[in-house]
């Protein structure tokens, strides 16, 4: 998935500039870009260190303000007041917007954000714009992310006194491979090369593996296997992983995730406080945006306070005649967000089931991310794991970035004389990969939670008499029908010799390497012939660009079922 054109350029530059350090591999830094906050960490030779900005902050708000010609990000910029972030000129929540089409419910929920998110509901990119001198100026989530990454990079370069090229970024579990390419695009725009994209809970799992390793060293014990469940809920996403850890190796047993987070909780409470919110703010004028900002800040503060107290008074003067002045109780808050909490619980249960572990065998329940402070979230995770207390060994807001920095050091080939980097993450793929066959069925070739790197092969055959071409449409997801999954790309296998249906064998192989690059191989074999009929095709996925829903429709319209495939296994079992 890495953008090779950019990679080559940066590699040559690095070797040119880093002459004195060439004997040592370049140490990749870890970046955790959260939906709302962001931080950077690096292995300093003996431990992980979080970098601070010029205002001595470790956590920086993830946003970019567009003013006049030069956009500025939340790394260095100083807001005179938090309200400035809600004036229309600041874009944030990039991680919720990136790589989504305008039919996506997450995009629709983002319309209450205090900047412009416009949809046409046809499956293309949403229109996103910031208010600059009373003009809506268009931008893209990739561009906003790139501006922000450039600032992070500059900050790290100043502090580390070297050029930064390689990064390990944490990502939500539920990101599709298409979304991952958007993240890589943003990094490439910022001159960064992605060494690894690490699902957030697996980053925390690596930190846990290191901590367990240290405990073993201190006790000189045997270091038996420990199973931990990591629950990570931030502003945009909720992710869960189950890891089996021993000897510094974190083996990811299962992953689950969804696009639910603090932002959904915030939206729910805002709608609860002001039921006609969408109607009031539909025109998206500068005044409405300011009021929306006021409501957002007040609601956010209230939610934070509800984590430590049973009720909170919310007062907002919406100036247009309406005023909010009421008490919000914790029970009421939990009722409004019942659906969010139910989804979180489902993700935890699904992950435990997929990992095939007994709840009793879970040694530690680790809660990280901003939402892990919400009492209801804590109780539901601890309840699912049958634990009284969560694991207390790590900072909930810094765990992911620390894990990313560790992975950056390990993947850069750095070793530590004391063995603190004697670590390894054995990753699993979070979403199944397969192709379209047997009509519009999704036939998985690599199932979710398969250990990476992986290579699997499956045989298909023609669906029609004398069929000479077959379409390989690659999808990602868990739906049984292809429409429920993400289309990653497609290509045609040609030159199938005319034969009765079901006799040519079309072999499809999927390969995922350690850096999560997916390659799909396909070719035709005829019974009794050893050599493939044509050279095999090798296609790096994803190949689709924007509007991927349209491609599938266009293919169907153009070819109907003439290029269909059937699975070979099913035929043989009959």
């Amino acid at each position, binding site marked *: 998935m890495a953008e090779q054109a950019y990679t080559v350029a940066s590699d040559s530059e690095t070797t040119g500039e880093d002459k004195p350090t060439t004997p040592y591999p370049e140490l990749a830094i870890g970046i955790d870009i959260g939906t709302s906050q962001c931080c950077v960490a690096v292995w300093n030779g003996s431990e992980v260190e979080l970098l601070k900005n010029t205002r001595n902050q470790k956590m920086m708000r993830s946003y970019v303000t567009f003013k006049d010609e030069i956009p500025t990000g939340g790394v260095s910029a100083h807001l005179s007041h938090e309200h400035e972030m809600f004036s229309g000129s600041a874009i944030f929540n990039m991680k919720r917007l990136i790589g989504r089409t305008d039919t996506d419910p997450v995009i629709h929920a983002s319309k209450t954000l205090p900047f412009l998110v416009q949809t046409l509901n046809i499956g293309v990119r949403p229109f996103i714009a910031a208010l600059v001198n009373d003009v809506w100026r268009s931008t893209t989530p990739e561009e906003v992310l790139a501006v922000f990454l450039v600032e992070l990079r500059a900050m790290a370069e100043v502090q580390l006194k070297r050029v930064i090229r390689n990064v390990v970024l944490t990502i939500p579990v539920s990101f599709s491979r298409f979304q991952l390419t958007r993240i890589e695009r943003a990094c490439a725009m910022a001159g960064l090369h992605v060494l690894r994209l690490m699902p957030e809970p697996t980053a925390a799992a690596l930190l846990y593996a290191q901590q367990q390793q240290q405990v073993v060293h201190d006790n000189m014990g045997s270091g038996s296997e420990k199973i931990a469940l990591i629950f990570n809920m931030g502003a945009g996403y909720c992710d869960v992983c189950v890891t089996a850890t021993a000897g510094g190796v974190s083996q990811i047993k299962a992953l689950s995730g969804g696009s639910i987070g603090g932002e959904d909780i915030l939206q729910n409470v805002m709608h609860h406080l002001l039921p006609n919110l969408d109607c009031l703010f539909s025109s998206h004028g500068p005044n409405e945006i300011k009021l929306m900002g006021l409501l957002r800040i007040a609601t956010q503060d209230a939610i934070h306070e509800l984590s430590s107290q049973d009720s909170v008074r919310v007062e907002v003067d919406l100036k247009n005649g309406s005023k909010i002045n009421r008490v919000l109780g914790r029970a009421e808050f939990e009722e409004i967000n019942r659906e969010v909490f139910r989804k979180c619980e489902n993700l935890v249960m699904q992950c435990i089931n997929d990992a095939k572990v007994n709840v009793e065998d879970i040694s530690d329940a680790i809660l990280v991310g901003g939402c892990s402070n919400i009492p209801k979230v804590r109780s539901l995770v601890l309840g699912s794991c049958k634990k009284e207390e969560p694991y207390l060994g790590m900072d909930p807001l810094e765990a992911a970035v620390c894990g990313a920095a560790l992975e950056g050091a390990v993947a850069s080939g750095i070793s530590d004389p004391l063995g603190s980097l004697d670590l390894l993450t054995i990753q699993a793929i979070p979403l199944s990969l397969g192709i379209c066959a047997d009509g519009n069925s999704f036939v998985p070739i690599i199932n979710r939670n398969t250990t990476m790197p992986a290579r699997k092969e499956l045989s298909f055959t023609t669906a029609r008499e004398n069929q000479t071409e077959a379409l390989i449409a690659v999808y990602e997801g868990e739906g049984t029908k292809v429409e429920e999954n993400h289309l990653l790309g497609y290509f045609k296998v040609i030159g199938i010799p005319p034969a009765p249906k079901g006799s040519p064998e079309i072999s499809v192989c999927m390969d995922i390497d*350690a850096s999560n690059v997916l390659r799909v191989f396909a070719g035709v*074999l005829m019974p009794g012939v050893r050599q493939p009929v044509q050279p095999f095709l090798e296609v790096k996925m994803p190949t689709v660009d924007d509007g991927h829903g349209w491609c599938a429709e266009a293919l169907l319209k153009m070819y109907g079922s003439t290029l269909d495939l059937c699975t070979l296994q099913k035929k*043989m079992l009959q």
Partner: protein
Amino acid sequence: MLGIGTLSTGNSLQLSPESPLSSPSCRTTNYQRSMSFPSRNPKRFTVIHAFAETIPKVNVLNKKPANLYEILRVKETASPVEIKTAYRSLAKRIHPDAATSESDSRDFMEIHKAYTTLSDPTARARYDLSIGAAGIRRFGNRSSSSSSSSGGFVGQTQTRRWETDQCW
């Protein structure tokens, strides 16, 4: 046959790199073959794989001439804990992300496959049965069971499997 219930669990890891089938030349050839999907003869590979869903255990055996225990470098009497420890220590050396690794992902996938079988008590028992039997009998059993479930496809694969196995 080699029931895991009879095995001790407290033993430390014992590597057995001296075993004849894991000699370097043998292993290298094996990896090269499975590494080059587009260029090698895919017929043999794919036909064998077509059985993956129906009789996976026999399949692993036929595809991997090296014994799963030899791949993990443990004795056939290794305890589950020893197998786990061996897998992890090998992973640290062989996994493409590992600092000292000089191998590509195929080696790790092979180790992971062996671990998947040997760490599951049922799969391991079945595997032990299959390697405990004499070579001739084991192939006779397998081909008769698979030819009853599928058509003339088996005829070719059977002979080819013989060729494959005779190499080892």
